[in-house]
């Protein structure tokens, strides 16, 4: 634990209280975030990631233990002061009618402005900066309700940036986004943490993307154990595989990627290299073949400009596209 931690928890337990009981979802959480770090919070659904993030953002009280922001106890900070240090972006789709993007981002000046919420020249500069930082300059005068989901989340991040926080907490901001928007979102968060010195804690289900982007991973394993470390350390420890592998899916640490469990239909090999060969491999794996080095007893596939050619011990076949290759493999499998 270094002294420059922006956020630190001490023996934190998060969960829910009813009138008589406290039900902890995660216990003994001791984590810290330093300035400029991008932290990805990973874990299966319903394990308590959102509960943890809400507690870090003081939207929910801890059951036990403390959260410290800039070295001070989180509960001792006023609402406005907290908002000046910590910005939040949630999963929920914000539906607000007839408000321009600029007005939404201006709402982020709330903790900095006076009673009437007047926006001065200084505030305007911060708002312009925030809009530019998320690359939404061309959207500034558009109606928020007409934006795509990805654009909306960008605007919500700009609004949080306008609070000028030292820490940004995001609860699955990519949940409703398409794949390119997800990648862009993570790239944006990394850029903000690199250039602005902003600390970012983000929960996500995009495991592979998170492992490529994060400085630090907080992984919640089934059972509630929290594993922290650089993505590579967490991969090496086998914790990712423990947390996410199922009957049908295997984690490949060397590629930091998940693959469907394959090989129940025997061995196959693909001749040659290049894009065609790797696509042919994908077809074979999907049809249940383990693709490896050339084997004498299995299926051998070669793909060139004219199409695919399969040779096995007792037959040969050929076709023009991958669909027919898949169909051929299916019939072989059935037979």
């Amino acid at each position, binding site marked *: 634990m270094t002294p420059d931690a922006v956020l630190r928890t001490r023996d934190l337990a998060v969960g829910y209280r009813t009138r008589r009981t406290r039900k902890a979802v995660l216990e003994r959480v001791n984590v810290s975030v330093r300035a400029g770090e991008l932290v990805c919070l990973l874990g299966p659904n319903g394990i308590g990631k959102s509960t943890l993030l809400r507690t870090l953002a003081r939207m929910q009280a801890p059951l036990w233990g403390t959260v410290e922001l800039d070295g001070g106890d989180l509960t001792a900070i006023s609402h406005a002061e907290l908002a000046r240090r910590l910005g939040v972006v949630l999963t929920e789709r*914000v539906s607000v009618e007839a408000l321009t993007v600029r007005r939404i981002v201006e709402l*982020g000046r*709330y903790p900095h402005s006076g*009673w009437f*919420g007047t926006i001065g020249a200084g505030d305007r500069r911060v708002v312009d900066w925030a809009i530019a930082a998320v690359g939404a300059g061309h959207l500034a005068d558009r109606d928020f309700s007409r934006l795509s989901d990805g654009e909306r989340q960008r605007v919500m991040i700009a609004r949080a940036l306008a609070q000028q926080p030292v820490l940004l907490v995001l609860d699955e901001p990519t949940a409703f986004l398409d794949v390119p928007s997800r990648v862009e979102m993570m790239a944006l968060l990394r850029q903000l943490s690199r250039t602005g010195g902003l600390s970012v804690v983000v929960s996500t289900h995009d495991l592979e993307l998170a492992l490529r982007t994060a400085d630090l991973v907080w992984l919640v394993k089934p059972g509630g154990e929290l594993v922290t470390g650089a993505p590579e350390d967490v991969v090496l420890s086998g914790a990712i595989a423990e947390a996410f592998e199922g009957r049908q899916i295997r984690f490949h640490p060397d590629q930091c990627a998940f693959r469907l469990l394959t090989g129940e239909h025997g061995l196959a090999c693909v001749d040659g290299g290049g894009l065609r060969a790797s696509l042919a491999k994908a077809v074979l794996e999907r049809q249940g073949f383990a693709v490896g080095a050339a084997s004498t007893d299995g299926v051998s596939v070669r793909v060139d400009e004219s199409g695919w050619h399969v040779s096995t011990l007792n037959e040969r076949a050929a076709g023009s596209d991958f669909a027919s290759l898949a169909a051929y493999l299916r019939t072989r499998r059935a037979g």
Partner: protein
Amino acid sequence: MKGREAVLLAALIALLVGVFLLSLALGSTSVPLGRVVGALTGGVAADRPADFVIVRTIRLPRSVTAMLAGAALGIAGLQMQTLFRNPLADPFALGVSSGASLGVALVVLGSGYGPAAAFGTAMGLRGDALVTVAAIAGAAAVLALVLAVSTRIANPTTVLILGLMFGYAVSAVVTVLVGASQPERLQQWAQWGFGSFSGVTSPRLALFGPLTGAGVLIASISTKQLNALLLGERYAQSMGLSVRRARWLTMLGASVLGAVVTAFCGPISFLGIAVPHLCRGLFGTSDHRLLVPAVVVMGAAVALVAQIVSLLPGSAGVLPLNAVTSLMGAPVVVAVLLRSRRGALAQ
């Protein structure tokens, strides 16, 4: 505020002034506009003292009451709609209207009860004052209950349902009272339910005016909080708003405005829900820095127009105010919503 919005707001204010003067001129007997202005400024010709009396003593308090009531209901409706993020919320969402009805019903319909028994014979100012006090007491009782229970509820929609349920329960008691009462008392009861701005005479305006005026003023300086709530309570909290306190104060403020208007003018149902929609449609924004002044002016103007129409100028007849507001207003609101594509329908 952009140029177009400033022009629209100025036009709305001009419209309000025009309607205000018109409301002083029109009625069972019409007074020329020149004499209306004369009576207002005090420079009225001595040859027509009747005009002075009609304008200053009868019509001016009525018109001021209408404007205050309209502005109060408009802003209270806006507060409730934003707080609950629900386009159907109105100032009476927490049951204050039903509470006021119960208070009035107990006084007007309750038989064998001392003050109520004297009520039929002594209608006059004392009767009106009794009705007002009863309405305020009833509304306060229900509001206190709803607010007390609502502090234990986290979800704003649940609070809305809670208010609705209290309203139903209280209305049921009123229905029982109505069912068991004598016909001549029912007449009075129905009269109260029609709503009217005429009952607030000058002495009563001295109480009604400051009450609603202060309420509107307090609500007007909460634009920042209301804007933060546009993104939902969670985001509002993350931006530094003390959500619990803001919710409680907003519910209290809006309900008190609704209760005061109901107590003095009867249950006026339409304005609180319609005026915010009219303004959102007209101005094409959800920004409260613009909406708040807009609903104040629009609410006052719409209430005045309804007041003028309900008196059927040039005739002796009178239409129930509630019927006028809804009959006139509903088509206008529907037209604005359909044309603007923004507004509440899109939510």
